[in-house]
């Protein structure tokens, strides 16, 4: 909402500087977007009078103007504007001066433009006759009358050649752009902001005059009848008529107010309806009454499938339930959105109908949305307007028609008001207000605050105030709404700072604890945490070579994604990890070790259409020196061990498309009969690596982190330290290359008996002294009896069993160590 301070001062006293004004308005609830000082920086810009005008001898387009700039002798300026005329008052920037806007036809320049004397096609030019935009006004507010050309200055406000332009035209102003929150549509107008300002600065509002003399005689009902066929969509229709209208330019003071508020002056009647709309926030429409056939206005929905031509010249197909303003024969406007081309005010218009109506915001919103046509009026109706404003605003237009001599006003009004809005009263408990605010604001101050906001207050005793807000405050319905009014006008900054009393125990869910611990362990193992998008491309599954029927492909789909790349909720993290590895590889980062813990999504199996199943997944990805399969396995085992998950089994996986078929494993814990699958790890398949632009071996692991959260042990039990020494025996055997060391280890554990405390694989050797296709595997076995010191004789039988088992199961040949 653009608030020109000069205009605001028409309604309330503002005697602080603009910084204090905005600071205090912010603290009472009007949030500031920007402040603009007007006009832009200009120097040596004066009023000039064109005394003589000749065609430039070398150009039809250019004129040579002799301009009186109050220097005794006229100065010569070459001007290219089509609208320059002899006798005209114009803004002139003298040579050596400065203007804020770009010169006609040029790109904007930061800080504006310096003007020098020069030659234009052989004729000297001692300055520039300026257009509105050259003086810094946005193109969209330049009056229609001189959009193409220089700015003809008004001749009725006492301008004299040589006067400083800013002074003579009273250009100085500040325009404050306030952010108006959706609960306060009443602030989207000058009187609304005046009310806020008055309440903030303890001033009062001087409302605009609305009385009329009605010199045209007669009665509005002689000209028009109004029928509301759809009262559910039209709360009120208020109309008056003015005759003897002469369409011309608005006076400069009104044009300036409109321009500073961001609107383009068009002609006196359109400007007047816009001006009053900005005063009250009430959209208004003026029809040429001669185009309203049958002297009747019907407010009804559009015929199904009908087409209507709006005043911007577009033919529009009307949606269902679109509310229309119709005459006896046909539609003449789309209610609350835009008028029709045929009923528009033209230069020939002499009698006008001024409409001030109140339409249902939801209906307007749906129609505007269906048409793709949002206008100033429609957005105001959508936000909500007090229907009582409709009459006041139309009366104000009529008052100004008389005051400004635009025409004569007909007596009375047609007021069809099926949805009459009467004032309402709300009980406000003083204690309750203070309880919520946390202060002890006295009753008297509360009453003052309510009254400063134009509410009527009755002290009902027992600590209750009966408060009746003005009907423009549609947002004040419940007691809590009044609490906010007290708090903001009293000032949030004046409230004390306290901490809540009462009891509380901090805590966190188990999965949060385990996630946080995992992050710390991973970081300790040199991994960086990453975060990637939860929505991914459905093609990710192809890029990681998942099978056609893989469960990962059955993803939750977004109805309105930003693009295909972010159109499904991810079922796994691996593709995002690979993308990050690829991105880093592309940036020549030679080694990456990274992890992510994130939510993955699956369709709700039990309740189709219900909320998706969400679970945690964890992904580790790496490449670069030392980051191979066994580094990954080491990291995973160490992490899980820290989380109290031991007894892992790794099973070679040859079928998963994402991984190298010879270097991939699934891993699980639990028992053989009831394994708990924890995840998969392996070297990335070279085709997948290529899909992600990773030009080296990469290793990947994805874990079902929910399961890890379930089974992780967060409690630790102490195991007594051994009292008796252990006995260590090493064993080295040659076996076929295909024998998995994991199976050998299991066989050792199974056969050694109770004395075996631990087995450690310490060497795998291939090469000299070992036959082709064979490998030498060496284990260190630790035996211990927790009740006594072991002897060789006691260990020997257990060790023999181990040797026999290895020979029997794996064809192992004992080697000398």
């Amino acid at each position: 909402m653009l608030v020109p301070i000069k205009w605001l001062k028409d309604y309330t006293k503002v005697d602080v500087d603009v910084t204090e004004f905005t600071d205090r308005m912010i603290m009472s609830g009007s949030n500031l977007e920007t402040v603009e000082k007007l006009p832009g920086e200009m120097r040596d810009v004066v009023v000039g009078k064109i005394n003589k005008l000749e065609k430039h001898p070398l150009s039809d387009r250019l004129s040579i103007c002799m301009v009186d700039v109050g220097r005794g002798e006229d100065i010569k300026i070459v001007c290219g504007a089509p609208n320059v005329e002899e006798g005209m008052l114009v803004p002139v920037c003298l040579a050596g001066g400065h203007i804020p806007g770009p010169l006609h036809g040029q790109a904007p320049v930061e800080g504006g433009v310096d003007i020098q004397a020069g030659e234009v096609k052989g004729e000297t030019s001692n300055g520039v006759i300026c257009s509105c935009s050259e003086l810094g006004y946005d193109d969209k507010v330049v009056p229609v009358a001189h959009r193409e050309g220089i700015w003809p200055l008004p001749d009725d406000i006492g301008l004299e050649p040589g006067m400083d332009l800013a002074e003579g035209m009273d250009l100085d102003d500040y325009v404050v752009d306030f952010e108006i929150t959706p609960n306060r549509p009443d602030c989207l107008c000058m009187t609304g902001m005046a009310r806020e300002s008055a309440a903030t600065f303890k001033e009062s509002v001087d409302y605009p005059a609305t009385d009329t003399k009605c010199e045209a005689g007669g009665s509005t009902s002689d000209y028009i009848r109004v029928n509301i066929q759809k009262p559910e969509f039209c709360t009120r229709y208020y109309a008056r008529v003015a005759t003897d209208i002469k369409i011309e330019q608005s006076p400069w003071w009104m044009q300036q107010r409109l321009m500073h508020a961001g609107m383009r002056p068009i002609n006196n009647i359109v400007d007047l309806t816009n001006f009053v709309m900005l005063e009250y926030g009430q959209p208004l429409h003026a029809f040429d009454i001669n185009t309203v056939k049958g002297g009747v206005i019907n407010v009804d929905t559009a015929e199904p499938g009908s087409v209507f031509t709006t005043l911007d010249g577009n033919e529009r197909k009307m949606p269902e339930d679109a509310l229309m303003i119709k005459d006896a024969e046909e539609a003449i406007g789309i209610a609350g959105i835009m008028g029709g081309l045929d009923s528009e005010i033209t230069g020939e218009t002499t009698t006008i109908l001024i409409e001030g109506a109140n339409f249902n915001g939801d209906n307007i919103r749906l129609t505007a949305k269906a048409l793709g046509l949002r206008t100033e009026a429609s957005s105001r109706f959508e936000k909500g307007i007090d229907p009582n404003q409709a009459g006041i605003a139309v009366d104000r237009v009529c008052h100004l028609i008389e005051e400004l001599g635009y025409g004569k006003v007909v007596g009375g009004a047609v007021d069809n008001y099926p949805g009459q809005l009467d004032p309402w009263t709300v009980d406000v408990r003083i204690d309750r207000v203070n309880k919520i605010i946390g202060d002890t604001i006295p009753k008297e101050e509360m009453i003052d605050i309510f009254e400063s906001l134009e509410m009527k207050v009755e002290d009902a005793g027992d600590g209750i105030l009966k408060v009746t807000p003005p009907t423009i405050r549609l947002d004040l319905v419940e007691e809590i709404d009044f609490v906010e009014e007290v708090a903001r006008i009293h000032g949030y900054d004046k409230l004390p700072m306290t901490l809540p009393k009462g009891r509380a125990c901090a805590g966190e869910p188990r999965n949060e604890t385990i996630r946080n611990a995992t992050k710390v362990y991973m970081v300790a193992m040199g991994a960086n945490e990453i975060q990637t998008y939860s929505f991914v491309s459905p093609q990710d599954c192809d890029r990681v070579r998942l099978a056609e029927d893989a469960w990962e492909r059955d993803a939750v789909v977004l109805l309105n994604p930003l693009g295909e790349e972010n159109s499904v909720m991810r079922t796994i993290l691996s593709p995002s990890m690979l993308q990050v590895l690829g991105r880093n590889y592309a940036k020549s980062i030679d080694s990456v070790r990274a992890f992510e813990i994130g939510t993955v999504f699956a369709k709700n199996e039990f309740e189709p259409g219900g909320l998706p199943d969400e679970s945690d997944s964890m992904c580790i990805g790496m490449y670069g020196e030392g980051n191979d399969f066994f580094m990954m396995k080491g990291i995973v085992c160490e992490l899980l061990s820290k989380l109290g998950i031991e007894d892992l089994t790794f099973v070679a996986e040859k079928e998963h498309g994402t991984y190298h078929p010879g270097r991939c494993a699934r891993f699980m814990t639990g028992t053989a009969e009831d394994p708990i699958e924890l995840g998969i790890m392996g070297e990335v398949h070279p085709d997948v690596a290529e899909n992600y632009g990773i030009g080296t071996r990469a290793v990947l692991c994805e874990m079902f982190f929910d399961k890890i959260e379930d089974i992780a042990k967060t409690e630790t039990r102490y195991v007594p330290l051994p009292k008796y020494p252990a006995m260590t025996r090493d064993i080295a055997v040659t076996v076929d290359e295909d024998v998995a060391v994991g199976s050998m280890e299991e066989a050792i554990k199974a056969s050694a008996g109770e004395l075996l405390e631990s087995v450690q694989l310490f060497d795998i050797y291939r090469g000299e002294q070992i036959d082709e296709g064979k490998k030498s595997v060496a284990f260190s076995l630790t035996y211990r009896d927790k009740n006594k010191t072991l002897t060789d004789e006691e260990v020997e039988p257990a060790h023999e069993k181990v040797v026999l088992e290895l020979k029997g199961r794996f064809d192992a040949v004992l080697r000398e160590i």
Partner: protein
Amino acid sequence: MQDRINQIMAEAKERLAKAKEMKEVEDIRISTLGKKGQLTAILRGMGALSKEEKKQIGPAANKAKGEIEKLINAKFDEVKEAAKKARFEAERIDVTEPGRANLMGVRHPLTLVAEEIKTIFKNLGYEIAEGPLVDTVFNAFDGLNSPQNHPSRDMTDTFYISDGICLRPHTSTVQVRTVQERKPPFRIISPGRCFRCDTPDATHSPMFHQIEGLIVDEDISMSDLKGTLDYMAKQLFGPETKTKFRPHHFPFTEPSAEMDVSCFKCGGKGCPVCKGSGWIEILGCGETHPKVLEVGGIDTEKYTAFAFGMGVERIAMLKYGVDDIRLFYENDMRFIDQFK
């Protein structure tokens, strides 16, 4: 005999003087004091001597033994010291050579900021609460008193997977869930991902993180809200930080406010970080609207509440001086590595 003792002494002394290694010293000890040593032989031969001779030679031999032992021990120490000194010299290293790499990773900056904020509120007795990222439209809007026609419900603002289910556009969904699941008093803090239909650019991301807080108890007031968030700001941005609460509007709180903190770059004087105002907007907050509490059947006469929500990315960007939100999701290791 006395001469023999003197001669042994003299020889031993001479050899000791020349000795440089432990072995040499040990040899001297053995040849003089060992089982078959020269001085030992004399002492052993004492039995064959006359009483007179014993009286004379005995003390002399014992004195010589004591003297030689002393000399030998001293020489041992000397040689040992010399050997250590030589070893230290030989083992000297260049301490300016680099250490062996033993690198730890780092957590993501958004995790670090969220952890910091969570810790502040845990210290104030808040519990961590979580909610799903994909939630019902009721939890995302209706339960939060959001008007039916509010633009944030549009498909141009919020991602949907069906009519009634959306990707949560804020963590406030957890408020609606919590008031329904729990009985007051309680205080929760809920961090997590949120989604809005914003095309990524330097300041927008279709996915981002928020931290939501809600406290419901008897007599929870605006003043408590101010005190709590002021404490948070001072913990997060330093003890000199000042806060400013401006009236604002949210459907789910009333009265509502936005909180600014004094610019931690310039201290409030005005600089590019705070766009010259001296203040930086950090979060939205307010007294929880009775309609939200009523969703959970909470007695709003007895209990009042406040809530707040802040963007983790925004705070991380301000705190670390990150100028492009997309960096958080690109995961360039050179970026991540900077957040110790």
